[in-house]
């Protein structure tokens, strides 16, 4: 089992909302062979992640690190999320930060709002569900999960986030210990890293050390 890196030892920082995102993105970086030297900082699922980031990104951190990025969920307000995080990261780092890209300054600063910037609501689970369900080999399983969702919806039970519910249902069958996105992915419940819906996020992560 890999030893969790220490922040002080890592030249690159990736900020995420919670533990599940941390473990998922750690797996993604490992798949890209970009895990070394990256410290993933999670904020305990804090609702105001942008405000917390302002405290975390200190002048000292900006001097010491070569890259500082953030991956955040658009949730129900993609436009507002993109604007808020672009504004906070730009103000905190003194560089013009925009969704989907890394700056060329020192340090390089990047932002990715999942699933697709300001164009639609959702979260990492939205991309993962799309990636997994777009694979023809998963079509039978997909039908089962969707049938389960429909059945529950018929009983008046629906998750706040549709894709998070679908991933939970899927991973509950594929990862015994913990059906959340990150722990489930760590248990190999998801392996479709090359699926097209994930490509923009994977490209962003791949550029963390460019």
């Amino acid at each position, binding site marked *: 089992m890999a030893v969790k890196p220490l922040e002080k030892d890592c030249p690159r920082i990736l900020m995420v909302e919670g533990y599940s995102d941390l473990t998922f993105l750690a797996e993604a970086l490992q798949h890209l062979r970009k895990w070394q030297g990256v410290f993933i900082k*999670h*904020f*305990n699922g804090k609702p105001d992640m942008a405000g*917390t980031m*302002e*405290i*975390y990104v*200190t002048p*000292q951190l900006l*001097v010491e690190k070569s890259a500082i990025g953030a991956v955040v969920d658009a949730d129900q307000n993609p436009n507002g999320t993109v604007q808020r995080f672009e504004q906070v990261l730009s103000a905190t780092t003194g560089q013009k930060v925009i969704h989907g890209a890394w700056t060329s300054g020192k340090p390089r600063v990047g932002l990715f709002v999942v699933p697709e910037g300001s164009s639609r609501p959702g979260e990492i689970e939205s991309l993962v569900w799309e990636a997994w369900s777009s694979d023809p080999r998963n079509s039978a399983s997909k039908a089962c999960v969707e049938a389960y969702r429909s059945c529950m919806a018929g009983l008046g039970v629906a998750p706040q986030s549709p894709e998070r519910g679908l991933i939970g249902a899927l991973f509950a069958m594929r990862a015994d210990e913990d059906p959340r996105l990150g722990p489930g992915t760590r248990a190999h419940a998801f392996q479709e890293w090359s699926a097209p819906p994930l490509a923009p996020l994977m490209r962003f992560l791949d550029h963390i050390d460019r």
Partner: protein
Amino acid sequence: MIVEDFRGFRRLDLQGLKGLNLVVGRNNCGKTSLLEGLALVSDPRRAPELPGLLRATSGQSSPRFFRWLIRDGAGGRTRLRAGLPAGWASVFLDWTIPQTEPLEHALGVPPLYVVCGSDGLRLRYQVTSGQTRDLASLVLGFGRAVRRRDGEDLIHRILKTVDPRIARVRVDLDKDGQDIMVDIGLTESVPLAQVGQGVYRLVAILSDIVGSGAAVCLIDEIENGLHHTALIDVFTGLAEAAAIADVQLFVTTHSHECLVAAHEAMKARSEYDLAVIRLFRVEEGVQGRVLERERIEAAIAGGVDVRS
């Protein structure tokens, strides 16, 4: 508080300070220097005391100490300003003799001139450092503190939270002189210094706050000797003591538990009177930011270590 070209600070502008101000940051980022700056601007007449206030110099004033008060490469002048209810107090340090402003002191060799701004405002300050305290001043401060009924009650209550055995603390006189004796249920009271470092530190801190008559108390590394489980009670006590005596506190710490405890203690009070001063050392010098309640809560909830 504005600090310019003092020690490692190029320019530090601290807005939004509160009754209790925790100063945090890594080693050598200027926490103790900030306390020295506060001492200097509070009362420039006491500038000669600076070397022994917070640093391990055994009280010896070395000319070399003053050499480094003005930031290296700053061109020879330091300015400190503090906003007080009555206006701005300001102090300058200068390598050249001032022409227009009143001179307070010439320190060291070659002389460093301490110049007081024309405002002439002074604040009485008290320092509680991590160094061993001389007994006479401790007894004096404790005596003054417990002369106030509310001061005595407070000190006993807070000490009991740290060591429930403590029944009474009093000044005692015998042929060897005065001492502070603590009743912990033994056949006789024991000298304060033998009860434990935490209790000793707390008596010193609370006595300074309540009994010194100071408007500002500067406390270095408050966590020394205190178990983390006692910290919320300690900060509750500090806040009460500061309110009783109308004292503003500046407290350095390396402890995350202290930050959380101070926050919890303040949350329980009718007025949240806590600010955190974060100091960072970067290439251009030391920088600082003041965090108020919203940011302190966000940092604690988000698992952000504000000491780094």
